[in-house]
């Protein structure tokens, strides 16, 4: 796959690994947070930690819109789906998130709610058009990458004068989350959680551009390197962060130049600004209330706002007492520090946000890395030379 495989080359990875090891100053520790769940996934899936020197410590951030979606909002979605005749369209990611009373969207579906998985917001709109007699609600989640596609369908619905389509909007904003982490007690207090630099999200940045991160670099004096989605991108970004830290710089650098510019996608941003406005505050699971961190649908498009249309009331639901997600999302603790990690809380039965989606820190560690927590297994002999054939 062009522009994918070249960025996964193991041979090049070894070169970059050596470069990172060479650049890391002896006796210095580098604590780097990758904000985006996709980067967490890449690091786990490709075993990147194996290729980094011990002095580079990757901290997994909250950048997974499913993980940070509060239980109360899933409850609202289930409530909507339970309305007779209503079709709830959702991305598959939300289907298994546990909500209140032991329910989830997939369980609600099993009980007869008409819940349909869609790949795209456009599919939800198509369903609304195909069923003019049914109310159709699109459960919109995601960061700035996923917001423009929702804006497009709201505008299209308005242009078509659709009377049966609305959106339950849960779009959240990246810069607000980064601020929240940097402002948290654990991070500000010296000696608790040092986060020396950030790997900035790949695809969010194609939309918002690299400019918004300049504020963080300046205000908090921490370097940000925007990295592409592939493992080589992540390694190169780590190298660039290590170099910045060595040189005492705190700048925004862009590793993902093939898709990200300083201004981002102006057309998409304009469209989003036309349809959405900032909520004063929004609860993020694990982080609590975060000001100006989420979007609501503007008055002009009120007809397509499911919250107004159905009079939805949000009721916050606290997380399990033993859940350490808040600390883990801020990088203050690691999954293994949580008492219920791997026992009561597993991907099959997630108690908190970090385990809910495969991008969450706990899910990623459980699925890909927990074998490292146990005694090292003796290395086996090499596999014989007889080559397998690639079909």
């Amino acid at each position, binding site marked *: 796959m062009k522009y994918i495989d070249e960025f996964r080359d193991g041979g090049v990875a070894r070169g970059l690994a050596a470069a990172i090891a060479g650049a890391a100053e002896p006796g210095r520790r580098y604590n780097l947070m990758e904000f985006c769940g996709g980067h967490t996934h890449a690091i786990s*899936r490709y075993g990147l930690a194996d290729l980094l020197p011990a002095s580079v410590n990757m901290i997994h951030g909250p950048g997974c819109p499913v993980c940070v979606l509060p239980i109360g909002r899933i409850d609202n979605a289930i409530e909507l789906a339970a309305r007779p005749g209503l079709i709830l369209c959702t991305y598959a990611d939300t289907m298994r998130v546990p909500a209140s009373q032991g329910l989830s969207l997939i369980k609600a579906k099993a009980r007869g709610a008409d819940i349909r998985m869609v790949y795209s917001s456009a599919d939800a709109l198509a369903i609304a058009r195909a069923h003019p007699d049914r109310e159709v609600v699109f459960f919109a989640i995601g960061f700035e990458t996923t917001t423009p596609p929702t804006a497009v369908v709201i505008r299209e619905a308005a242009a078509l004068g659709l009377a049966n389509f609305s959106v339950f909007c849960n779009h959240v904003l990246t810069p607000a989350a980064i601020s929240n982490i940097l402002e948290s007690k654990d991070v500000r207090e010296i000696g608790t959680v040092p986060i020396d630099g950030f790997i900035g999200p790949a695809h969010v940045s194609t939309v918002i551009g690299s400019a918004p991160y300049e504020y963080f670099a300046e205000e908090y004096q921490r370097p940000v390197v925007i990295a592409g989605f592939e493992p080589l991108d992540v390694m190169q970004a780590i190298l660039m962060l290590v170099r910045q830290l060595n040189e005492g710089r705190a700048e925004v650098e862009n590793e993902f130049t093939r898709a990200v510019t300083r201004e981002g996608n102006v057309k998409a941003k304009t469209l989003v600004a036309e349809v959405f406005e900032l909520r004063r505050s929004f609860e993020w699971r694990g982080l609590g209330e975060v000001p100006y961190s989420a979007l609501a649908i503007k008055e002009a498009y009120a007809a397509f706002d499911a919250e107004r249309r159905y009079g939805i009331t949000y009721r916050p639901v606290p997380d399990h007492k033993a859940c350490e997600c808040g600390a883990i999302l801020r990088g203050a603790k690691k999954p293994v520090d949580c008492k219920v990690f791997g026992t009561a809380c597993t991907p099959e039965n997630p108690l908190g946000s970090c385990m809910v989606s495969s991008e969450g820190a706990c899910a990623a560690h459980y*699925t890909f890395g927990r074998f490292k927590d146990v005694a090292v297994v003796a290395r086996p002999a090499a596999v*014989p030379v007889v080559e397998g054939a690639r079909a």
Partner: protein
Amino acid sequence: MSVRPGYVRPVDFRNGRVDLTHGGGGRAMAQLIDELFVAEFDNDLLRAGNDQAAFAAPPGRMVLATDSHVVSPLFFPGGDIGCLSVHGTINDVAMAGAVPLYLAAGFILEEGYPLADLQRIVRSMAAAAREAGVPVVTGDTKVVERGKGDGVFITTTGVGVVPPGVRIAGDRARPGDRILVSGSVGDHGVAIMSLRENLSFETTILSDTAALHELVAGMVAAVADIHCLRDPTRGGLATTLNELARQSGCGMLIDERRIPVRPQVAAACEFLGLDPLYVANEGKLVAICAADDAPALLAAMRAHPLGHAAAIIGEVIEDPHHFVQMDTSFGGRRVVDWLTGEQLPRIC
């Protein structure tokens, strides 16, 4: 005009639909069985018209396997629920190293299902059974009310006999053994998903559904002591390896670079955020044998069309935790865990 004596109006396969009389035990059901199942499956045992098929058991250990098929959509690129149900049970029998002899087929039909489609499915089953040399010799038909079924559910049961000296079971893998796969993984699951509502993309990936008993016969002839055989259906290769690791009480180490994945399957998985290791297969098998036997086993697999892309992908190791570990194409190592729930596409 007089009615021709003995005239019975034939089943209307063109425009007719399944109705409750087809499962009622009366004339309508008998007629459907006669004009569809007996006509298409076409063998003496079935034609005898009994509620059971009687046959002499050949000497040796017998194997019995059953599978229920609820695949949706019923027709997909490369196959349908009919041939799938034949292949699936033949494969279950074959994974014991056994020679499949006969199949039984139970149908649960939903009221309202088009008879034309049912005929297509049964013809596909019959063709698959004929090609495999394993006849469907007995069966059953029931009809459920509209809304209580998914068109057609099929349960197939198969019986076979194990050649002398062959002992293949999930708990026989030992540290040092080699792990082989018969070909590319993920084809069937991707073919199915390409049709599912709202996930459709245009692709020429075909389901790999196939009967593997002849491939297995060749393998058993080449290597007398194959330790394990299993077909990685739901949950994919990863789930099968984890099952075998747990049953055998050991761990595994595989090499991502050696696992065959077709480029289109890889691409479709990228689009949807799926991992090919967890995507279903219906015409592939995993084999585990002693290291010394691996070259011969590989050669035997590659000699058969259904194993032409076979590969040695790793080995069995000592591991009290029974982890399946994988060296990634990137150079790192990770755990390939059990599948959590059903693998769903993702946006993030």
